[in-house]
Each structure stands twice: as C-alpha cells, then as structure tokens.
C-alpha cells in the first residue's frame, strides 16, 4: 500500500512542477536501486576491486598473467556453467570431474586423428554420460545426488580401463592437437592475443546467458527449480527439461576435458577430483541458490573468475614477498584455507542480505 500511494504522489507532483520536497522523495526512491545493484553485483564489484588491487600492487601482473589465469581456469568455468543450469532446476551433478577426466583420456587416445576429430570424440563422450545422467534422474527418478555420484564411479572406472590402469596418457606429439589447442585469436591487433580456451569460455557463457534469458528452455529451467510440481501441473515439459540440463552439463564437462588435455598435454583418468566442488563454489559465489529457481549465468562467470583470482593472488603475494623481502609467505596448502574462508564470508554476507530482504 505505501508503495502505491508514494507513486501517486510523485506523478501528481511531477505534473505540478517539482518542489524540493518531492525531489528529495524521488531521490530516496531511486536510492534503493543502487543498493539493489550493490547487492546483486557484489561479486562483480569484488572482482573489479581484486583486479585493480593486483594491478597496483604486483609489478608482473599484466594482461599476460590474466590470459594465463583465464586459460587455465576456463575448464572450471565451463563446468560451473553446466552446474549452474543443473542447480537452477534444483538438481546437482557430481559426475562432472569424472566426465572431464574420461573425455581428456578419449581426446588423448584420438589425438593422432587431429584436433577436431579428438574434440568431437571427447564431447560426444560427455554428451553420452550426460544422456545417462539425464535418463536416470528424469526418467528413473533416482535422486540427482545419488545418480550422478554413481556415474562418477562408472566414468572413472571406464577412463582407467581405456588406458589399462595407467594414471595418464600423453597426446600424440605428431598430431596438430597441441598446435591447434595453443591457437590464439586477435594476432596483430591484440597484445597479447587471446588463447583458444578463453574464447571458448566466453562464447559458452554468452550462449548460456542468451539461453537462460531469451529461450523457452531457460524459462522452463527456472520454473522447474522454483516449483517442480506446479510446473508439471502447468504442463511444462519437466522431464525433457531435466534431461536436457544434464546433457548440457555433460557436454560442457566433455569440453572441459578437452581443455584439460590441452593443459596437461595428455589425458588423465585421475584428474578432475573435486572439480564438482569448485564448480558448486563458483555457482554459490555467483548468487545462484542451491535450492533452485533463482540464478544467474553471468554471476557464475564472475564467481568462477573471482575464485581463481583469489588463488592466483596467493601466488602473486608469495612472489611479491620473495622479490621485495619480508612479509607473508604462505605455501600452496593455504589455497584451501583461503578459498574456504572466502566462501564462508560470501555465504554469510548472502544470508545476511537475504534475511534483510525477507524482513523488508
């Protein structure tokens, strides 16, 4: 009620020329929007602050460093993108790390046939596992947590079998896999040029934002996560959408596996352990609720970048200590502690903001 009445006052007074009093009211009315923006894009603001801080403090933090951070973390970004869609339907996909490992092995095994052949095989494997996940969750109605946990056991077993229980396998060095994988874009007019993984990451996220915002599928995903039963009753294709979400996650995990193969210069059946947790953390930092129904693809991108920047900053700070003498030196085991505490702060802030919003 108060909102409606205040609107009436502003419209009538606007017609009768703005007095200082009403101008104050208008200003106050526009203020909460800034507050909302700060709340919604808290992660983005933090990311900008972190990057600016790094530019000022570290001598060797430049575009090349950003490039290498991004192209190393693109694999996590892709997985987090798939995870965002799965989580928005209220599900979860614990098999992504296993899928990435399997597809890196498949890519390495097929690398002698050329990059694009290997890429196609690896992505197809990801699609295949995603189809299995989707079928088991949507059709057999096994809880997503258990289903994807089980497929993780399965794909890791298959990956190990493919390379006869060796932990890893090298790429065929004569193939064009590494050269194509190291392709850069914008040679000549961009300095430094952008590596292939970053382009892949950006294209995937742009498509992800488009799909969530402007397609029916995106609407269905959010509707199902918000209230599955109501969506079913409204006649939305709940089963098909749930199925497709897991296929999407599997596909992106397959692509991440290709990036893993590029990074490792080979395939590994044991890599990718805990990747699902990295992805979930990125999704959480990005502001997507794990109960489903609310989410932002752009937020996940920001969350993923922020988490990788935090880890990178630990390394930069150590280099700084070595170069300038004195100060803090924390070995790589501190990564988990810092990542965990950062996540804790983010989650506590989010819960505080939600609580405040609920009270309003």
């Amino acid at each position: 009620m108060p909102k409606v009445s205040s609107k009436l006052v502003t419209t009538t007074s606007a017609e009768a020329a703005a007095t200082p009093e009403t101008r104050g009211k208008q200003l106050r009315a526009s203020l909460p929007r800034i507050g909302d923006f700060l709340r919604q894009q808290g992660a983005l603001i933090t990311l900008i602050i972190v990057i600016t801080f790094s530019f000022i403090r570290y001598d060797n933090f430049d575009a090349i460093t950003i490039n290498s951070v991004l192209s190393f973390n693109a694999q996590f970004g892709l997985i987090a993108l798939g995870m965002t869609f799965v989580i928005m339907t209220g599900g979860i996909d614990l098999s992504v790390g296993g899928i990435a490992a399997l597809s890196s092995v498949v890519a390495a095994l097929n690398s002698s046939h050329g990059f694009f052949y290997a890429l196609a095989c690896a992505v197809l494997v990801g699609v295949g596992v995603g189809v299995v996940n989707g079928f088991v969750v949507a059709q057999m109605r096994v809880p997503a947590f258990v289903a994807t946990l089980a497929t993780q056991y399965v794909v890791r077993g298959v990956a190990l079998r493919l390379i006869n229980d060796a932990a890893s396998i090298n790429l065929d060095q004569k193939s064009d896999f590494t050269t194509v994988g190291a392709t850069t874009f914008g040679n000549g007019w961009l300095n430094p040029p952008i590596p292939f993984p970053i382009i892949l990451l950006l294209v995937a996220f742009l498509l992800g934002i488009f799909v969530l915002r402007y397609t029916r599928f995106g609407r269905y995903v959010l509707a199902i996560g918000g209230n599955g039963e109501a969506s079913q009753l409204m006649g939305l294709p709940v089963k098909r959408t749930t199925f497709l979400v897991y296929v999407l996650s599997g596909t992106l995990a397959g692509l991440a596996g290709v990036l893993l193969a590029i990074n490792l210069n080979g395939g590994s059946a044991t890599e990718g352990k805990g990747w699902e947790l990295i992805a979930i953390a990125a999704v959480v930092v990005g502001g997507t609720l794990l109960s489903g129904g609310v989410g932002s693809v752009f937020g996940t991108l920001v969350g993923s970048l922020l988490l990788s920047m935090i880890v990178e900053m630990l390394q930069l700070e150590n280099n700084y200590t070595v170069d300038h003498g004195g100060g803090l030196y924390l070995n790589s085991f501190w990564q988990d502690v810092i990542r965990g505490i950062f996540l804790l702060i983010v989650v506590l802030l989010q819960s505080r903001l939600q609580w405040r919003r609920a009270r309003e």
Partner: protein
Amino acid sequence: MMRLEQRFSGLKARGFWPRDPRAIGQTYGALIALIVLILFNFVFTRQFNSVISVMDLLVHVTPTLILGVGMTLVIATGGIDISVGSIMGLTGILTYLIFSGKLFGIHNIVLGTIVAIPIALAVATLIGAFNGLLVTRFKVQPIVATLITLITVRGIAEVTVNGFQFAFLSAPLVSWLSGNIFGFLPRQVVLIVVIVAFFAWLMRVTAFSRYLLSVGGNSAAARLAGVPVSRVLIIVYGLSGLLAGLAGLAYIAFDSAANPVTDGVGKELDAIAAVAVGGTPLTGGRATILGTAIGAIFIQLIRQTVVSLNIPDDIASVIIGLLIILAVFVQRQRKTA
C-alpha cells in the same frame, strides 16, 4: 498362544516387527541382496568361507560405516554433510601431532594417546556443530555449509604439517584399535557393532529420534509443534562430526599412518552411497541405521568379490556405480507402487 500374539503386537507397535508383510522386502531389500551376495561368494570365491575374510571385510568397511551412521542422521533431517572426509583427515593428523609430542610436548606416547583421542574427537564434534550453526543460525543450505567446512578443514589439516604424511607402525593407537579381542575379534569390529547398536537404539526408542525425523519430514511443522529444531540440527551435525572423528581414528589406526592430503578424501561420497543403498531416502524424514550398515558392507563386499574374481579394480567401480543406481531405483519403485 495369546501371549505370543500380544508380544507380536507389542513388537509391531514399537517398530521391531514389520506391520505389513510386504514391507519386509522394502525394509530388508538391502539385507536380502547382501545375503544373496554372501551365498554367491561361498559358492564362487574359494577363499571366502573363513572367519578371517569376514573380519577383514568388516575392518575395511569400518570408516565408511561409521561415517554412514552419522550421514544417516543428517540425511534424515533433510540435510547432507559432505565435510566428514575432511574432518577424518584433520582428526587423524591432530591425533598424531598430540601423541607424538609435537603439539603439546607430551613425550610419553601412551599418555599422549590418552590425551589426543578426546581432544581430537572434541575438535571433530565442534566442527560438526559449526556446520549445524551455519545451517540453523545463518540459514546456509547444508550442502553449501558443509562444502565450506570440507574445503577449509582440509586446508587446515594440510597447512598444520605442510602436507607431510607420517607413519607410526608401533603406536599404541594402532595396537589398541587394530588389535584383536579373544584372538579373532578385531577391536574395530567391536567399535562398529557398538556404534551401530547405540544409534539403532537411539533411533528406535528415544524422543530425540522423533524430533530428528519430524525436522526432516516437515521442518516448519516441527517448529510449530514445539520441537527445538535448531538445537536438534546442531546436535545432529555435531554427532556427524564426532562420528567422522571416530572414523578418522579408525582409519589412521588401520593405516598406521596419517596423511593430511589424502586421508578421507571422497569418503563422504562412499558414506552417502551406503546410506542410499541402505534405504534411507535422501529427502529426509526416515532413517534406518541398520540399513546403512548393510549398505556399506554390501558395497565393500561387491568390491572384494569383484577383486577376488580377478576382475580389475576399475571394472569394480563401474559395477558399484551401476548397482548403486539399481538399488536406489528398485527402492523408489517399491515406494511408489
């Protein structure tokens, strides 16, 4: 005859006897599968028919089973606790640091062990209670709250010793926990029997179990009915932490080494699998401790059966994955039918 019937109805009322004969399959599905698997082993696996191999099986399953009991309680409240593997790792390394005299300077190893165990278990319980606090006071979703703990606690365990691992073959903890009673009964087996019996009793008889299940069934309704929801949740997550600590002790005693980087990694998933196979629905509101025990033993027995049939370990994990899906699928079918 009359008295016998009365006795049965009494048992039925207290939940010791299934009310509906059809429910036997539902309740004891995992048990039946386990018995079938054991019979299969007696026929096809030559080394199986000895007490030693059964004890060996139970010793191997100890950490997963103990975690599974705690996980059952948490899942029954509608939550999940994925931090247990990390708590295992931290408890292990903390216990080692205290009994070896590196932390408090106690150089008598027996005294050190006596001090180390309660402190390590208390830390584990506090971490669990912290999970509970995040879930209740700050309304963080259980999977997010325990994910934070998973990452941070693993980091703390690694940082305290810079990722080094330590072996201690002759420590008292190893001889206490890995020794035998009467020459054939490993103490680890006694430990899991006591834990399972205690929590099965807890879930059958006490008012606490009613509270716990009502929180899992409908948290809002439970609150309105006067159930102290927050306190119940904090206790449940605390218990899960405590049990994770015990699992950590059992693990380092079995391994006679403490490794902060690898100890307990991924164990939370094994525990969840055991709970799911055991018949506790992941949506909360119901719990079966015995089912979880059977589920954990079932999964371990499959692993050992597959290995003893000379099938490679990687195929074993494929088979286990498929069986988990199958087990949960079959249980869901029965419920909806």
